[in-house]
């Protein structure tokens, strides 16, 4: 890339780099706090204050949370529903978004309006439960994937992304004899990798954070994802002691809480760096056009 070497540009770059670095540090600090507390001994935490580096290292909280297989088991459930669920999401959403991106399609506005309407009005928890139950999805992991197969928000924004793709590119495929499904999978999707990565990420994070539907739809707690556990640990720790008839255990709840947060958050945090290469500027578009 050609570098512009004017003074103005240099000042701009310096300010820009410094500012972004500061913002990035500001963003990561609390997570460092969470991480640090999870590795700190309970006694140290009891003294209070902001901990950014454990003075007395302790693995007690991690030993505690790994003392049963619940955490690992629910983590596997989470990974399973996240991977499979996101795949279902992307297929269903792009299948629907692509035709809706064609402005000549009859009935398109009506459908879009109907979709938009569901963003604002919904029947609520109980009627939805009845549908999920009628389809025999309750007590299966499908209940965490199918009822949310398409997000209206993602659909509308993805439709908008598809609309930006120049028609010329699609036409060449049509001349090659592809039908619309072929155009979508051979031309449009490869051209929309940044969008796919984005919505894949949105969906994946959505699946990862599910806890309410799991409790609602699934009675068998061995099928619950990790967020159910996380929620319970956080809530339990925030309610004060004094109700129990026995002493609280030796371990400071805060450190355990933080350890669970770390364990439940790291996997989904790792998704983004892997997707980043698809955000590289205009790769596909440039090459196809050139």
């Amino acid at each position, binding site marked *: 890339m050609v570098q512009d070497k004017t003074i103005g540009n240099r000042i701009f770059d310096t300010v820009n780099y410094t500012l972004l670095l500061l913002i990035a540090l500001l963003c990561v600090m609390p997570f460092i706090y969470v991480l640090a507390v999870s590795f700190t001994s309970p006694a140290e935490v009891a003294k209070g204050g902001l901990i950014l580096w454990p003075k007395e290292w302790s693995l007690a909280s991690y030993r505690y949370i790994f003392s049963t297989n619940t955490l690992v088991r629910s983590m596997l459930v989470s990974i399973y529903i996240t991977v499979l669920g996101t795949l279902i999401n992307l297929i269903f959403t792009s299948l629907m978004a692509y035709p809706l991106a064609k402005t000549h399609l009859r009935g398109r506005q009506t459908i879009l309006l109907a979709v938009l309407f569901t963003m604002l009005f919904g029947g*609520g928890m109980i009627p*939805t439960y009845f549908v999920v139950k009628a389809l025999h999805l309750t007590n299966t992991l499908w209940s965490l994937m199918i009822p949310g197969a398409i997000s209206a928000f993602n659909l509308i924004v993805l439709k908008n992304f598809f609309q930006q793709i120049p028609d010329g590119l699609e036409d060449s495929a049509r001349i090659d004899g592809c039908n619309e499904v072929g155009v979508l999978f051979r031309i449009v999707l490869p051209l929309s990798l940044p969008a796919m990565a984005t919505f894949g990420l949105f969906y994946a994070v959505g699946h990862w954070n599910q806890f309410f539907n799991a409790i609602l739809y699934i009675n068998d707690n061995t099928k619950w994802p990790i967020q159910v556990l996380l929620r319970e640990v956080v809530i339990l720790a925030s309610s004060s002691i004094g109700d129990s008839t026995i002493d609280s255990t030796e371990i400071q709840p805060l450190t355990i809480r933080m350890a669970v947060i770390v364990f439940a958050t790291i996997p989904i945090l790792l998704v983004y760096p892997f997707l980043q290469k698809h955000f590289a500027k205009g790769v596909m578009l440039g090459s196809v056009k050139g």
Partner: protein
Amino acid sequence: MKQEMYAPAGTPVANARAGKSKIGYLIKDIVRDKWLYLMLLPGIFYFIIFKYIPMYGVTMAFQDYKPYLGFFESPWVGFKHFERFFSEPQFGMLFRNTVILAMYNLLFFFPLPIVLSLMMNELRHAKFKNFVQTLVYIPHFVSWVVVVGIFYILFTTENGILNEILYQITGQKIAFLLEAEWFRTMIISQSIWKEVGWGTVIFLAALAGVDLQQYEAARIDGAGRWRQLWHITLPAIRSTIIILFILRLGNFMDSGFEHIYLMLTPTNREVGDVFDTYVYTIGMTQAQYSYSAAVGIFKSVIGLILVLGANWLAKKFGEEGIY
């Protein structure tokens, strides 16, 4: 070939002028687009089954819903809950607080992810860019309980880190978490801190679609960075910005219950109590399903009006809008 296949037939105006029967054209269009319609089917089924079939639940707002009676046995009460809601003495205050907070959000929060992603877009070291991107997106995964907890450690008057620094400099402490005048500032800055990085993701994807050749051409023409930004980058993501703005308006009245609730104190409730927290308080002594549903419908209707209005306006200005 494609020209005659698509462009003319797609415009109803052209059909009408051709003088043929409209139904004939409709059928022809549908046959022509059969693949597209087929692709729509799973999605349409999805929305019907999971969104429209349960929609009867909306009737709850017009009943005295009781779980053990269900939707068909619970007594109908018409607009009783709406009447109660509108005649509450706090209605005015709640409405004002909700709207002001929403406006603050649109003004101070909404543009920031765009600015941040444009800043990141100007970074040339790919590694640094990835590094920054990864870090700014982390706070999204920190729950509100933890965020509010961290803000407490920083801002409280009892050994709060920032207040201690403030005390060293000015000799005074500010009760950021208690004073009503600081409430909105705290709420917005927490939202910014937590969600701005996450908000950049979608704009970065939009920016990735910008054709690099345009920049090169502009550079050859001698356009500086600001002009490139103004004439190439921004127009490229304009439609995404507009779409997101319009969709955001749909949730205009949603204030983020958990966040607000955690920040409410007796001394800031006069500016902090919003519809979402009010409904929660009411529901604490009685799960007033119907009443909550009525408030929800009120919020949604406002959202719908805003979305449709904004979309209409966008179309006036030649934008694509939502539909």
